[in-house]
């Protein structure tokens, strides 16, 4: 019985935490206070459910207890909540809780997501804030994922939550006219949980990957916004990327996308990615995440067709450049140009990137080295590999480049790492 109640509470914490918090915080914009009252409600569930039994509608029970908690705290000038747990619990839960319809608890998580990624909130804290408010992660876990000490992360989170409260950031879903501008940061923050800028050093301290959580958030967003092609595109992109996760390394060496063994890709996740992409396409529009998902899809197509359609990929990268001309996308475009039109054309495309930052951008040097090798310019290729290797802090990627350098002039057909592989 005790275990059932505990398991029930834990299960609820996973699925209902964000929903309950969204409702509690929306009242006065105070996420911190809402978190406290929800934590109290969970603690009370753990102490009373084992004896009294799990209520028929546990989420509604938690919400009611948490609301009473908030009410008590607000009424009490001195916030004397420290020793009143039992007392409040006994009186606070009205009998009619059991009669509430479970589906009647509205899902306000969308507003909460928009609050977390509000333009007035520092972009660097948006992803951690989402993980805490929507998934209930504590600062310790988030700090670990971002390689930041817990105290530092906790401080940043508290600062952001106070800013939300004090600045009066509304708990509301933007209307149609504002949606395009406001959706971008939400998507970025969710993607941020997937593409955490992990330190790339080999054997770095064990960190929790948040890839699954990012996937969950992206999928949740498609449920809350089923008609937004970019939300679907993001869910597709993360599905494809997750699918290829097992194939990114063999032993201790990095494996670029086009050398990966499709047999090691997860077919279910690939199929899921395809479904999201189809839905996104049906809605029209071509945003960054949808194009990136389409690029992933084109690569994953090799699992069935046995070959890569580089022309299609180049068209997709050209499309990506028109909406999101990042350095990575420009280098990838040059690399695909090299595939389609030959190494010299690829090199020309690489040279055409005017940005100074390209000089210290590792993928640009890896691509240049490969293209020079393909063009038979062995000495220049060796120098470019040298530079690429000096910029590579990840041991697996370095091993790959070193192996390629050692093969220079032998076959000229070593394959190159695609940026973003």
């Amino acid at each position, binding site marked *: 019985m005790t275990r059932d109640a505990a398991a029930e509470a834990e299960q609820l914490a996973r699925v209902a935490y964000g929903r309950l918090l969204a409702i509690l915080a929306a009242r006065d914009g105070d996420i911190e206070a809402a978190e406290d009252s929800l934590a109290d409600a969970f603690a009370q569930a753990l102490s009373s459910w084992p004896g009294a039994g799990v209520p028929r509608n546990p989420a509604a029970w938690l919400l009611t207890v948490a609301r009473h908690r908030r009410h008590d705290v607000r009424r009490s000038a001195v916030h004397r909540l420290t020793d009143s747990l039992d007392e409040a619990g006994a009186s606070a839960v009205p009998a009619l809780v059991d009669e509430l319809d479970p589906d009647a608890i509205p899902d306000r998580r969308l507003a909460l997501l928009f609050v977390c990624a509000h333009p007035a909130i520092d972009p660097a804290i948006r992803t951690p804030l989402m993980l805490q408010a929507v998934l209930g992660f504590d600062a310790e876990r988030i700090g670990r994922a971002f390689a930041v*000490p817990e105290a530092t992360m906790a401080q940043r989170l508290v600062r952001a939550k106070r800013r939300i409260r004090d600045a009066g950031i509304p708990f509301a879903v933007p209307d149609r006219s504002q949606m395009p501008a406001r959706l971008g940061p939400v998507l970025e923050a969710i993607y941020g949980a997937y593409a955490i800028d992990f330190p790339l*050093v080999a054997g770095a301290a064990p960190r929790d990957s948040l890839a699954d959580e990012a996937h969950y958030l992206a999928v949740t967003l498609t449920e809350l916004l089923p008609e937004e092609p970019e939300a679907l595109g993001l869910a597709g992109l993360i599905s494809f990327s997750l699918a290829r996760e097992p194939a990114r390394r063999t032993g201790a060496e990095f494996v670029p996308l086009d050398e990966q063994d499709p047999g090691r890709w997860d077919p279910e996740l690939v199929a899921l990615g395809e479904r999201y992409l189809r839905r996104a396409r049906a809605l029209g529009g071509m945003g960054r995440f949808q194009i990136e998902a389409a690029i992933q899809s084109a690569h994953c197509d090799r699992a069935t067709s046995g070959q890569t359609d580089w022309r299609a990929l180049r068209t997709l990268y050209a499309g990506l450049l028109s909406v999101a001309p990042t350095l990575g996308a420009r280098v990838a475009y040059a690399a695909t140009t090299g595939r389609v039109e030959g190494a010299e054309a690829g090199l020309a495309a690489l040279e055409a990137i005017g940005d100074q930052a390209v000089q210290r951008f590792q993928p640009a040097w890896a691509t240049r080295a490969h293209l020079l090798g393909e063009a038979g310019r062995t000495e220049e290729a060796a120098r470019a590999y040298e*530079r690429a290797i000096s910029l590579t*802090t990840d041991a697996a990627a370095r091993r790959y480049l070193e192996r390629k350098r050692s093969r220079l002039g032998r076959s000229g057909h070593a394959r190159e790492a695609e940026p973003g592989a």
Partner: protein
Amino acid sequence: MRYALLLHYPQPAVPTVRPEEIEAGKAAFHAYAKALDDAGVLRSAEVLQQVAKATSLSLKQGTPQVQDGPFAETKEALAGIFMIEVPDLDAALAWAEQCPAARWGTVEIRPSAVRFVDGTWTGAT
């Protein structure tokens, strides 16, 4: 070229850092040093004691002036030194970016001028 990666960060008040965090920090620094070493670019690495344990000495006044504490009180203090040898600043920056301390402090990248080896001063390169 040889570069010193000078790690500066706020000196934590001891009670606020939990033992697990210290362990996690040690593990991160270990992995970082190991990665530099595996790449063949690490020359030396030292992590310093808290700045509160520093003692400063000067003879500027003629007689030794010994002061309990650091030379200068700053918000962020020197906390560690990694000497690396890489082709250029861009490579040094790539490694500095991976330094655990860069996430909560600042990494100053400073080229070495000369160093004393086998009884004589030699150029840094």
